[in-house]
């Protein structure tokens, strides 16, 4: 049967290919892509890949909910100038820039509460670390180009010293 014939068959009439973890764990599964790449996986690997994909989707959903929450939380606090987020090893780090040029101890107290709350309410995201960085030296701690912008002002790339 040529590949053109396969394409013509409507999907509804085709039987699904079933891979059962208990029976097909070691069974080779050959996947032919339209770009002629050939993937050979075991049944176990196919199932693990699906699990990982679901895990990533759930993590991304929870992460999005967390950043939305932070955005709203920050909007109520005029002492916050900006907020960025970046992965650091196995944790997610939130960088808050205070409006003041110095470390804001009152904000630090609120951020500590926020940190504990995020761990509790968005536990699927994993370890989250919250901290402050000065606007004038933000690029010492955050790569603005690759960090995720959450809210507030956006510094110019390669900002070294505030003018």
């Amino acid at each position, binding site marked *: 049967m040529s590949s053109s014939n396969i394409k013509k068959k409507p999907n509804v009439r085709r039987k699904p290919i079933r891979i059962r973890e208990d029976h097909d764990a070691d069974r080779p599964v050959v996947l032919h892509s339209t770009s002629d790449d050939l993937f050979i996986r075991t049944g176990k690997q196919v199932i693990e890949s699906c699990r990982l994909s679901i895990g990533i989707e759930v993590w991304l959903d929870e992460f999005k909910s967390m950043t939305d929450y932070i955005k709203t939380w920050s909007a109520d606090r005029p002492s916050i100038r900006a907020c960025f987020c970046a992965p650091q090893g196995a944790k997610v780090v939130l960088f808050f820039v205070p409006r003041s040029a*110095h470390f804001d101890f009152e904000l630090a107290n609120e951020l500590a509460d926020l940190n*504990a709350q995020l761990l509790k309410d968005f536990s699927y995201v994993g370890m989250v670390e919250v901290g402050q960085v000065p606007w004038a030296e933000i690029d010492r701690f955050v790569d603005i180009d690759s960090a995720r912008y959450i809210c507030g002002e956006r510094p110019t790339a390669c900002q070294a010293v505030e003018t």
Partner: protein
Amino acid sequence: MANVQQHVKQWKHNRELVALIPSTHPDWIVTTAFYTALHAVDALLAFDNVTRITCHKDRNMAVMQINRYIKIRNPYLTLHDLSRKVRYLADPGAWVPAGVIEKDVLSGSLYPIENSVQKLIGQDLELGRITLVIPPKATGSASSPAATD
């Protein structure tokens, strides 16, 4: 694994150093104050048999998730954040001015941690307030050899 008394010893050891750092170096006062607090927290963790704390992340998680440590949580996280950043700044004095050390770093952060830990481990270490070293003002040009020319 170090026991409570070993951590208490290092807590006091670091605390002594805080008092020796000139107030012209608030970045290093903050850093030393943080490591003083860290050993106070580790003394508490040892007292409570909380094991497998191998890094800042583990310790922070414990401080945030154990209800008994609620009074330690905010000042400890504040000192942790402050000390981790200030050492890397080109202008640390702008981020942590010398004027905030006594009020916000010591009275507002370190002492509450120390007081809470002492209560929780049932020990009164009779820790006094830290008296910061204020270096004499730089001598003016009048006393310098160049000025006598």
